[in-house]
C-alpha cells in the first residue's frame, strides 16, 4: 500500500514538474522517463506482493486506507485486494511500455505540439486509473471514472488539427458519458439499499432477484459501453485509429479492461444474479466475439482492424465471465471459478499482446506514414524489428500454442467444458454454443491476422519502388521487446499468471480454491508445457536433419549425371524469382491483396455484414482502367445509432421554438412557472 501511494505521489509531482519545464524537451522527457520507471516499478512491487500471498484463508488479505473527512457524499476509501492487484499489474506493465514508447514516438513532434502537457496528462491518466481500480467508495469511483474519461479524451485528440480526430474524440466523450449516466443510477440505487456508499457495506446487503437483475442491466450498459460490447461499440473503431499508437495501446489494453473490472466488481458485490443474466451475458459475448472478428476481417487499415479485434477479444473475456455467472447461478463452484479465472487471464494476456500489436503498428505507421494495408508488402526484410514483434503479437492473438493467448483461450474452453459436464440440459446447450462460438472466433481471428501480417510484411511491396524505411528507434523497440518476452514466457510457463488469475477469481467468487482444481487445471498446464517442449525438440531435430541433408549431398552433383543438376552446380539452395507460371510481366500489384484474401469469408457471411463489391467489369480486347471497391456496413452504427441520432436531432429541431432568444420571453416563462406553482400550492 505504501508503495502504491509513493508511486502515485511520484507521478503527481513529476507531472507538475513536466508542466513547469514543458519548454525544454530534453528535461521533460528525462523527468517523464525516470518518474514513469520509478512509479511503475513501485506499483508492480505492490501488486505482486498482494498476488503472491500464500495465505489460503479468506478473505484474501487486504490493505486499506481511509482518509478522515468527507467530500460531498463520499469519502476517500481505497483498498487493494487481489482483483484490484491483478488489474494494477497489467496497468503498470502497459503504462511503462507505452510511456517509454511514447518518448521515442514523440521525438518527431518537438516544437510542433505541446508535448509537455501531453506527457503530464499521461501521468495523470495513470493516477486516475489507479484510483478507479482501488476505490472502495462509489462516489470516489465515479469521480475517478469521469476524470479518466476526460483525461483520455485529451490524450486521444493529440492530433487535433485533423477533423476526423476531433469527431472521433467527440463520439468517444458522448459514449463514455452515456455509460456514466447508467453507472451513476446504478450506484445510487445500490447505495440507497445499503445506506452507505462503501463497497464493503454494499456487499453485505441481500439484493432481491428483480433488483439484482435491474442493477445487472445498468452495469451491463454502463460498463459495456466502456468495454466495447457490440452494439455499443461504435466509438471504439473511431477512437483507436485517431489516437497516437501508444495511446491506442493504453486505450485498448487498460481502459477497456477497467470497464471489465467494473463489471467484475459489481458481480463481486451483488453475488447472486438470476440465471438469465448469465445467459444474456453469454449471448452478448458470442455476438461481440463473432461480430468483432468479422468486422476486423473486412478492414484494410491496420489500426481499425486492431480496434475491432479488441472488441472480439472482449467477447472472449465476457464469455468466460458469462460462464462464471451461469456456474454460480447453478451453484456449481468449479465452473464459476474456472470461468472467472479464464476471464481474468484473458484480460491480462490480451492487454499484453494487444499493447504489443498497437505499438508495432505504431512503429509501422511511423516508418511508412500510412496505415493502409493495401499499399504495403514485403516489409519484413526492411523493418526486421517491427516485423518480428508484430509476428509474435499475431501468433499470440490467434491463440496458437507456445504463446500466452493459447493458455487463456484453453482456460475458457476448460470452463465451458466443465459447464457441459456439470450443468443441466439448458446449461449444456448454452455451454456448447459457447464452445462452438469460441472455435469459430479462434479460426476467424487466425484468418484475420494471417491476412494482416501476410499482406503487410510478406511478399513484395505493392506501391511501386521500395523506399528506404527507417526502423524504429531504441525507445520504441525496448518496450515492444519487453511485451513480446512476456507473451512468450506466459505461453511456455503459464503457471504464474494462472495462479494470479486464480487469486483474483477467489475474490470474485468469495471462496477458496475448489478441490480438484490442481488436477483439473494446474497439471494439464504442466503437460502442455511438456508437449510444447517435445515439439521444440522435434523442431530442432528436423532442422538439424535438414542442415545435414543439404550439406551432405553437396558436391555429389558431378557423379550423378543429371544435366540440370550439374548446370546448377552443387546442391546449394538456389535463389531465384518466384515461379509465376510463365506470365511475362508480373508486377508486385498482381499479388493477392487484402480485399481478395478476405473475400471468401466475407462472401459466406455477406448477409450479416452487408458485404458489397462495387466494380465495373473491364470490357473489350484492350480494357482500360477499372476499379473495385469492397465495403462492409457496421450494422450497429448504420442501422441503429445513426437513425436514432437523426431522430433525436429532428425531434430537437421541432422543439427549437422554445428557445427564442428574446429576454422578455424567458421572463414570461418564469412568470408562468411562478403562477403555476402558486396555483398548485393553493390547491
Amino acid at each position, binding site marked *: 500500500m505504501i508503495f502504491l501511494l509513493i508511486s502515485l505521489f511520484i507521478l503527481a509531482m513529476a507531472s507538475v514538474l513536466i508542466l513547469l519545464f514543458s519548454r525544454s524537451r530534453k528535461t521533460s522527457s528525462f523527468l517523464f522517463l525516470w518518474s514513469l520507471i520509478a512509479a511503475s516499478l513501485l506499483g508492480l512491487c505492490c501488486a505482486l506482493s498482494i498476488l503472491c500471498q500464500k495465505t489460503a484463508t479468506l478473505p484474501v488479505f487486504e490493505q486499506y486506507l481511509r482518509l478522515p473527512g468527507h467530500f460531498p457524499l463520499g469519502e476517500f476509501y481505497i483498498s487493494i485486494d487481489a482483483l484490484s492487484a491483478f488489474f494494477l499489474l497489467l496497468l503498470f506493465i502497459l503504462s511503462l511500455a507505452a510511456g517509454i514508447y511514447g518518448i521515442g514516438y514523440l521525438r518527431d513532434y518537438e516544437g510542433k505540439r505541446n508535448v509537455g502537457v501531453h506527457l503530464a496528462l499521461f501521468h495523470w491518466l495513470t493516477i486516475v486509473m489507479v484510483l478507479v481500480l482501488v476505490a472502495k467508495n462509489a462516489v470516489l469511483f465515479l469521480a475517478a471514472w469521469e476524470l479518466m474519461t476526460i483525461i483520455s479524451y485529451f490524450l486521444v485528440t493529440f492530433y487535433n488539427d485533423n477533423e476526423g480526430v476531433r469527431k472521433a474524440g467527440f463520439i468517444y466523450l458522448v459514449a463514455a458519458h452515456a455509460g456514466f449516466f447508467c453507472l451513476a443510477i446504478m450506484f445510487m440505487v445500490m447505495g440507497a439499499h445499503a445506506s452507505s456508499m462503501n463497497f464493503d457495506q454494499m456487499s453485505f446487503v441481500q439484493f432481491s432477484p428483480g433488483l439484482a437483475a435491474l442493477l445487472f442491466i445498468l452495469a451491463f450498459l454502463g460498463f459495456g459501453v466502456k468495454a466495447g460490447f457490440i452494439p455499443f461499440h461504435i466509438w471504439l473503431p473511431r477512437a483507436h485509429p485517431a489516437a497516437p499508437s501508444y495511446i491506442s495501446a493504453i486505450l485498448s489494453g487498460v481502459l477497456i479492461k477497467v470497464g471489465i473490472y467494473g463489471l467484475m466488481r459489481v458481480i463481486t458485490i451483488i453475488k447472486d444474479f438470476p440465471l438469465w443474466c448469465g445467459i444474456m451475458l453469454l449471448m452478448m459475448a458470442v455476438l461481440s466475439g463473432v461480430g468483432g472478428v468479422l468486422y476486423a476481417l473486412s478492414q484494410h487499415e491496420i489500426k481499425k482492424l486492431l480496434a475491432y479485434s479488441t472488441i472480439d477479444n472482449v467477447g472472449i473475456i465476457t464469455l468466460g465471465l458469462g460462464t462464471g455467472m451461469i456456474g454460480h447461478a447453478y451453484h456449481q463452484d468449479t465452473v464459476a471459478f474456472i470461468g472467472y479465472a479464464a476471464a481474468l487471464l484473458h484480460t491480462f494476456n490480451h492487454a499484453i499482446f494487444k499493447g504489443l500489436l498497437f505499438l508495432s503498428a505504431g512503429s509501422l505507421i511511423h516508418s511508412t506514414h500510412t496505415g493502409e494495408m493495401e499499399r504495403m508488402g514485403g516489409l519484413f526484410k526492411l523493418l526486421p524489428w517491427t516485423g518480428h514483434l508484430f509476428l509474435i503479437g499475431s501468433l499470440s492473438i490467434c491463440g496458437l500454442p507456445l504463446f500466452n493467448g493459447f493458455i487463456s483461450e484453453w482456460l475458457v474452453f476448460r470452463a465451458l467444458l466443465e459447464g*457441459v459436464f456439470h450443468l443441466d440440459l439448458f446449461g449444456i446447450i448454452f455451454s456448447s454454443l459457447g464452445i462452438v462460438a469460441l472455435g469459430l472466433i479462434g479460426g476467424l481471428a487466425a*484468418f484475420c491476422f494471417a491476412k494482416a501480417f501476410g499482406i503487410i510484411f510478406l511478399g513484395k511491396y505493392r506501391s511501386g519502388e521500395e523506399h528506404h524505411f527507417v526502423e524504429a528507434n531504441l525507445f520504441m523497440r525496448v518496450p515492444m521487446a519487453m511485451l513480446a518476452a512476456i507473451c512468450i514466457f506466459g505461453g511456455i510457463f503459464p503457471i504464474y499468471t494462472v495462479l494470479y488469475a486464480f487469486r483474483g477469481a477467489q475474490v470474485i467468487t468469495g471462496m477458496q480454491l475448489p478441490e480438484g482444481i490442481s488436477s483439473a487445471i494446474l497439471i494439464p498446464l504442466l503437460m502442455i508445457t511438456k508437449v510444447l517442449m517435445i515439439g521444440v525438440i522435434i523442431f530442432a531435430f528436423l532442422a538439424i536433419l535438414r542442415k545435414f*541433408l543439404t550439406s551432405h549431398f553437396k558436391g555429389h552433383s558431378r557423379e550423378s549425371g543429371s544435366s540440370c543438376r550439374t548446370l546448377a552446380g552443387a546442391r546449394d539452395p538456389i535463389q531465384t524469382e518466384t515461379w509465376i507460371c510463365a506470365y511475362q510481366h508480373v508486377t508486385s500489384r498482381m499479388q493477392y491483396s487484402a480485399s*481478395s484474401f478476405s473475400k471468401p469469408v466475407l462472401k459466406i457471411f455477406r448477409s450479416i455484414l452487408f458485404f458489397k463489391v462495387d466494380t465495373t467489369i473491364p470490357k473489350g480486347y484492350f480494357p482500360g482502367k477499372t476499379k473495385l471497391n469492397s465495403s462492409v456496413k457496421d450494422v450497429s452504427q448504420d442501422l441503429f445509432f445513426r437513425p436514432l441520432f437523426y431522430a433525436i436531432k429532428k425531434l430537437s429541431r421541432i422543439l427549437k421554438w422554445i428557445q427564442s432568444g428574446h429576454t422578455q420571453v424567458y421572463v414570461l416563462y418564469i412568470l408562468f412557472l411562478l403562477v403555476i406553482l402558486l396555483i398548485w400550492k393553493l390547491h
Partner: protein
Amino acid sequence: MNTFLHLIILVVFPPLLLGIIGKTKAFFAGKIGPPLLQTYYDLFKLMQKASVYSLTSNWIFKAAPMVCLSAIFAAGILMPIASFKAPVQFAGDLVFFVYLFALARFVTILAALDTGSSFEGMGASREATFGCLSEIAMFLDLTILALLAQKLSLSGIFLGGLASSWFLVGPVLILVVVSLFLLLLVENSRIPIDDPDTHLELTMIHEVMVLDHSGVDLAYIVYGKALKLFILGTLLISVIFTFRFHDHLMDTGFFIIEIMGLAVLIGIIESTMARLRMNKVPYLLLSAFIFSIIGFIVILLRGHS
C-alpha cells in the same frame, strides 16, 4: 515400452496410407498403379534434392514446413492408437489437439503468402476459410464425444469411454461419424473438396499453398500430410470401432485392418465422385455442422429423459 510402440506406429505407418489410396484409385481406373511403398520412395528421393528458394521469401518460408510437421507430430503424441495410451494425456487435451492443427495451418498460410505469388495467396485464402468452418464442426463433435464418454482427454474417450455408446444412443452416432468423415475429407483436402493430384489453380486448396516448396521442405510437407491423414483417420475409426480386446497384439492388428479399410474407402470416394464447385464447399461444411447439431440434440434428449 507402450509409448515406444505407439511412436513407432505413428512414425512409420502414415505414408503407407497414401500408397493404399493410390492403389485403390488405380484399381478403379483399370491400371496397376504405383507400388504401395511409393510414398516412402518419394520421401527418400526428395530428401536428396536441392531446394530452390524465392528471392522474396525469408526465414519464415524455410522454417514453416518444420514447424508444421512438429505441430502435427505433437498432436499425434496426444492421440491414442489402438489400445496404446497416448504418451501425454490430460483433461482438456481435445482443445490443444485442434489448436496444434490450427498452428500447422497458420504457418503454412504464412509461408504461402511469403512467396509473393498470387497462386499461393489464393490457396492460402481458401484454406483459411475452410479451416475456420471446419473447426466449429470439429469442436462440436469432440464435445459430443466427451459428453458420451464423460471424460475430457482423448485417451480417456477412446480407450473405453465410448464402449457402450453405440448401444446407449444407437444409430444417432452415425450422424457424428458422418460429420467426422466429412471433416476428415476437408482437413486433408481430399475429393470432393480438393483434388490432391492436380496442380491447376481452379482445383487447388492445399496443393497450391505448398507449390513453391522443394527438396527437404517438400519431403517434410508430404510426410506431414500423411501424418495428418493418419491421425484424423485414427480419430474416426476409434469412434466407429469402440471395442477393445485389451490385448495389444489383437488390437493393433484390428487397428491396422481398420485404417487400411478407411484408406480404401477414401480411394473409392476419390474414384467415383467429382470435385464440388468451390462455392458449394461451405454448404458441405455447414451440413457436417448440422449433422453434429442434430446428433447432439438427440443424444442430449436421450440421455436426460
